[in-house]
């Protein structure tokens, strides 16, 4: 059974069709990448899947259950967690506390356990602490645990957002351009971490401009252009697909300067 299934998903903004009748399946195993030129509707697609926007039409199924139009926090509670293209950290909190917030869904403690701190709450807090530190170690941020999140360099902030999302223990993680703004070295490290996340059993669905990352990391690629799916397959199949080549070569020079490497590789 597929982890995530999109059937005829459509989103209109007034007269503009940002996502047009898109259908695809994301199997539970491995990494699936959604690629496409700028403005192709990728981020809108993620917002539809994660519940931040309701679709105008179509159906989204997660683990066999219809989640179309559900609220973002209840979709997250089912195990579908996203990150953002522009990092949204809790800047006033420490790095460690950011990841602890990510553990929210794994706790039960409410106001009264906050005030009274019964044994169960202390145990839960210790687990959260341990889990958060593990994830910081996993993403190479352990030494920075007590720094304020806002003090991290950009690349580390991206890593922290990934750690925070993983803290929620998702079955499916949506990564919105995780490599944007990263240098080649950081991007390679990210690629390894994404691979490990997938190998540990979490389904990964990512949007990416950085084709090196996609080709090295993804098991399957879905290509969208002008809101429509134009191709689907393994990285090798997609790279050879004439429709994809046309979409990329025919498209005007990608205007985003966030990831310069995307431009070179997208044309290569």
């Amino acid at each position, binding site marked *: 059974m597929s982890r995530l299934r999109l059937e005829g998903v459509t989103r209109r903004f007034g007269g503009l069709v940002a996502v047009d009748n898109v259908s695809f399946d994301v199997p539970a195993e491995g990494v699936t990448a959604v690629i496409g030129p700028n403005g192709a509707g990728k981020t809108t697609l993620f917002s539809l899947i*994660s519940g*931040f926007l309701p679709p105008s039409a179509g159906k989204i199924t997660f683990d066999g259950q219809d989640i179309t139009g559900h*609220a*973002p*926090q*209840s979709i*997250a*509670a089912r195990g579908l*967690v*996203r*990150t*953002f293209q522009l990092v*949204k*950290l*809790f*800047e*006033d*909190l*420490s790095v460690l*506390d950011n990841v*602890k*917030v*990510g553990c*929210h*869904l794994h*706790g039960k*403690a*409410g*106001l009264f*356990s*906050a*005030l009274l*701190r019964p044994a169960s*709450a202390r145990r*839960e*807090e*210790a687990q*959260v*602490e341990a889990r958060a530190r593990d994830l910081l170690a996993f993403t190479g941020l352990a030494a920075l645990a*007590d*720094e*304020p*999140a*806002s*003090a991290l360099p950009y690349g580390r902030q991206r890593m922290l957002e990934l750690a*925070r*999302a993983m*803290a*929620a223990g998702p079955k499916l993680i949506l990564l919105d351009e995780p490599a944007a703004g990263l240098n080649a070295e950081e991007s390679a490290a990210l690629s390894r971490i994404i691979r490990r996340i997938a190998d540990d059993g979490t389904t990964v669905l990512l949007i990416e401009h950085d084709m090196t990352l996609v080709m090295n990391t993804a098991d399957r690629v879905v290509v969208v252009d002008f809101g429509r799916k134009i191709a689907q397959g393994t990285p090798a199949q997609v790279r050879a697909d004439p429709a994809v080549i046309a979409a990329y070569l025919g498209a005007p020079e990608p205007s985003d300067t966030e990831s310069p490497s995307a431009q070179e590789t997208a044309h290569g």
Partner: protein
Amino acid sequence: MTISPSITSPERRPLRLVGLLPWLFAGVVIGYAMLVGGYAATVVSFALIYAVFVTGLNLFMGFAAQVSFGQNAFAAIGGYVSAVLTATYGWGPLPAMVLGMSAAVAAAAVIGFPALRLKGHYLAMGTLAIGLIAYEITVEWQSVTQGYMGISGIPPFGIAGYEITSDRGQLVMLSLIVAACAFAAARIRRSRFGRALSAVAGSEEAALALGIDVSRYKLMAFLLSAGFAALAGSLFVHVVGFVSPEVFGLHMVIVTFTMLYVGGIGTVAGPLIGALIVSLLPETFRAFKDYQDLAYGAALILLLIYAPRGLASLFAPRGRS
């Protein structure tokens, strides 16, 4: 006394000591009032009552970064329920206070449900309106509140038949309550609940994406804040023995915001420090009542422009406060 982190890295220890300074300051001020008694004790008592209110305000506005100009409405509910039940119907202060707080929290739930969907200046004006409505009702509902005349003869708190009437007795009681409030705030800050509030403050979208029910936490913080406000209102009427609409008017909004900003919004010690400083300064200068609000307003403007993080933030390490 209230900061008990589960894990402390060694290099943070000096900062922790600095973090104790605000509490030391508060202890010295309260201790001095305890020794001198009389007028000094009265002034500090009022400051402590304000500290309870501002602690609640800080939970909603500092921890969760929401906006309300109308928390004085809940102080009015707490204060008047307490006053009417004890002075008119002969209840004991404690059950009256509990009922007042419950009434305020219930009112906050009814109001908060639609109001917290508002954004920006709509939210600001909507909550300001709630405070003004409460004020108008206390003025106009004369059969219950006796209008501008106010209600007098409200009994003081007591424990087992012994009434706390001395300045020092009240000061001790209020100090314990403020300590409990600060302790609660500190515990909330370092808990799953408090982290969820910080997440709402930091980025609502990111909080939602991590499964945090943002509107539920906003409402919870609003109810908590209303509970603290009602507690302060009730404490006021029992300590002073009198209540009139002016007590919970617009004056209270400005004074408490000044306290919050002087002490440092979002910090645990800020509300107490702010309440003490803002209450004591006008006394040191022996200013008249007329000049007080003027001074508060001007001080607030200067703080907002020149020191938006408040005085207590100087003591708190950045990024975790």
